[in-house]
């Protein structure tokens, strides 16, 4: 027992010496990054930046809420320089809570379209910039469902689709943002009726992630499902025959092309309010809208680049739309502000 504990303590003290070392700031070219992006493919993005600039990246990946809570507690002592979040409503919330430092950058302002970045503050600075977008689309069973039955979001609640719908939890940020945008299009009362209609149409209670929904359609458990495009693109590009077969069995619709366009969510970045390496932080954000980085978002993680005119080099994204589609232009602040209202609607109609 004693020997076991001694060996354990020695091993621990050796490693904990490393763990206790704090982040070095002085003189070293560095940025400290809090990221809600959880994609292993982003490793290449970060190492390319370090190679190109010599600036080292210290990183913590967490979820959006954790990052915001951490920033609030750290206050002026926060070591964070750059914050990356993956949901429009969260970016808006970070801005409202004063987590971000509005910055001026010609490069970023030129590259990122107005509707995909924060409104300028009084001194002309911008609190956050969108870096990539994700379309929330409908997939359907090509054998059992007609494409024209699901080419708008409104039809997801139509009685003709009864018993066919699969969707992840309504409280997931991807769905909350879609429903928040729908509240802007339809108004609160009609949105609640729409949500109730979706509950009535469900093939099973909401569970799992977007990939689960696509697989459920391919296996015949449901007829239609809602997913972000990059999950489908990943299956389409998989080298695993079973996953490829899943992607081949389902059709994809970019809803509302004849009206307000398909809902897109945005992943974006900002400089932290108390950043001590502001110049490097801005450099990093500017790097993320460079052609190489934008190409990485499109190729590495199957997202849509924000920079207009980018040559899309992703066969799956091209196959889905021919490379382009009409996306909605609902203000991100409205999506963020509707979030609580939407959750309460979900609770009332029993959308889990």
């Amino acid at each position: 027992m004693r020997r076991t504990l001694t060996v354990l303590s020695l091993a621990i003290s050796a490693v904990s010496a490393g763990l206790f070392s704090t982040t070095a700031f002085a003189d070293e070219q560095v940025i400290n990054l809090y990221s809600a992006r959880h994609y292993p493919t982003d490793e290449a993005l970060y190492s390319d930046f370090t190679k190109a600039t010599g600036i080292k990246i210290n990183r913590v990946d967490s979820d959006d809420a954790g990052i915001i809570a951490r920033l609030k507690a750290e206050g002026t002592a926060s070591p964070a320089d750059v914050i990356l979040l993956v949901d429009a409503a969260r970016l808006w919330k970070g801005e409202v809570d004063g987590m971000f430092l509005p910055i001026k950058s010609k490069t970023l302002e030129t590259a990122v379209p107005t509707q995909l970045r924060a409104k300028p503050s009084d001194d002309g600075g911008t609190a956050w910039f969108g870096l990539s977008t994700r379309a929330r689309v409908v997939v359907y069973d090509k054998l059992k469902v007609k494409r024209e039955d699901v080419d708008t979001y409104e039809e997801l609640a139509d009685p003709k689709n009864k018993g066919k719908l699969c969707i992840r939890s309504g409280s997931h940020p991807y769905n909350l943002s879609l429903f928040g945008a729908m509240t802007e299009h339809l108004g609160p009362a009609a949105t609640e009726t729409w949500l109730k209609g979706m509950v009535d149409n469900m093939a099973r209670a909401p569970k799992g992630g977007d990939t689960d929904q696509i697989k459920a359609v391919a296996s015949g458990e449901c007829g239609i499902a809602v997913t972000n495009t990059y999950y489908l693109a990943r299956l389409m590009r998989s080298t695993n025959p079973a996953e490829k077969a899943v992607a081949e069995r389902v059709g994809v619709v970019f809803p509302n092309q004849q009206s307000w366009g398909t809902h897109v969510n945005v992943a974006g970045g900002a400089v932290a309010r108390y950043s001590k390496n502001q110049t490097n932080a801005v450099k990093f954000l500017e790097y993320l809208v460079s052609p190489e980085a934008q190409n990485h978002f499109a190729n590495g993680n199957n997202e849509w680049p924000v920079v207009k005119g980018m040559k899309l080099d992703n066969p799956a994204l091209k196959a889905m739309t021919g490379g382009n589609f009409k996306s909605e232009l609902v203000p991100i602040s409205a999506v963020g502000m509707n979030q609580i209202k939407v959750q309460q609607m979900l609770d009332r109609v029993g959308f889990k």
Partner: protein
Amino acid sequence: MVFSSRLFLRCVLVVLALLLALPVLTVLFSWAQWNDASASILAEMASTVLPDYVGTSLLLCALVSVGVISMGTVSAAAVTLFDFPMRRSLEWALLLPLAMPAYVVAYAYTDYLQFSGPLQTGIRAAFGLEGRVFPEVRNVWGAACVFTLALYPYVYLLARTALSERANHLMEAARLLGAPLSRRIMRVALPLARPAIAAGTALALMETLADFGVSSYFGIQTFTAGIYKAWLVMDNRIAAAQLATLLLIVVVALLAAEQRAQSRLRFSSARADRHSSESQPLKLHGLSAAFVWTLCVLPVLCGFVLPVLFMVRALLQGDGVVDLPWDRFMQWSLTSLSLGGMTALLAVGAALLLAAQARLHPNWLTRQAMGVVSLGYAVPGAVIVVGLLLPVGWVQATWPQSGVGFWLTATVLGLVWAYLVRFVAVALQSVQSGYARVPASLDDSARMLGTSGLSLVRRVHWPLLKKPLAAATLLVLVDVMKELPATLVLRPFNTDTLAVMAYQLARDERLGEAALPSLALVLVGLLPVILLSRTLRRS
């Protein structure tokens, strides 16, 4: 001199208890911050979803209790009271599911058993069937199975420790009085193990109540789901904390009821006589051996072997594994182990200090301190993070030069603090159930012979508590390695653990790739499980 050391010890205890209780106190303090926004959120939830959350949580707890008590106690009784083929191997193999995080078990089973999984797809294809072959895995019943398989080792480990230290002279006396084996087990052995079974069940239930990973993946609406919703979606930490206090009330009631029941019984006994005939397990043959063997193999098979096989299958079929930074696996493993080990030693030290104080100087203050410290385990990890970050944020804002906000997250201090808040209760349960079996008469004798205070703990309690302390170390170590919410938020830069990597990949819906760090986590978790299991047997 005696007075000053006692005073010093008390000060240490008060500071320790305050540090460990801080997040829970912050949560309780939320009622003082009552405002219209949180009130309207709570009112709205109460009229729509709260009753459902409460009902689901209660049902889940009831099912998990039945599951872990039966599975944990039966297997513990089997390996300590009987001898049958493979008993020695099963003795430690039954601990294996301890190394598996519940969410990994959930992912593994779902991936294999769901409608679109290989089993149902295969059966449908083979027999030309349509529709669901067997019921949906992802519901309350499925979750109860997952929790039972992942958490029964708490009951098993503590009950086994208690049973192997059972009062042999009592069993011997019962035998001499003509009690048959079944009666000796039911009337002597199991009642003696009851504090341990109760402690293990309490741990399993608190873990179930605090869980978010399994319930969110299964889409079941537990009370914790409501707390997360209030915090993450409604962005109202006050409402979330207020909901968390309701959860705490349930846990307090559970613990209080259990303690009241236990206080009516005396469990302690003198040191077991190793040479008693009753200390030799009863040899089983034929059908009875096969039956007991099956009872012990099933938990290992369902809680460990099958999930591992399902994960290996997902790993082999998935692609993109080559993209994983293989060279960093060792670093992630070492980080997981060292965080776990560091916390385990601190937690066991703190638990021993608290339990010894409660034993030597039982008073109102000590009882309250232990009660509040115990609650930490039932508080969802994310709520502990909030409960810890809120006061730190306040200190940082009031004294900006203090840099306390920086120290909390730029070093492992905040993380280890959060772990201790959550897991000292685990160590405490084990140490307390160990203490419950040390008769008070030993303390009295020691005092009459002039030994008291810390010396009594060192010379009398410590040798008798070695096994429960080793069990506590093991439980905390593997618990920390599996912990997620606090690790995600509070870890310093570039300090990833295996659990974090598994979670990040699973969150990105790359189950095949998530299988690799999950398997590594299981593998690294096995080292302490085997090491300490051997130690437990020897000591």
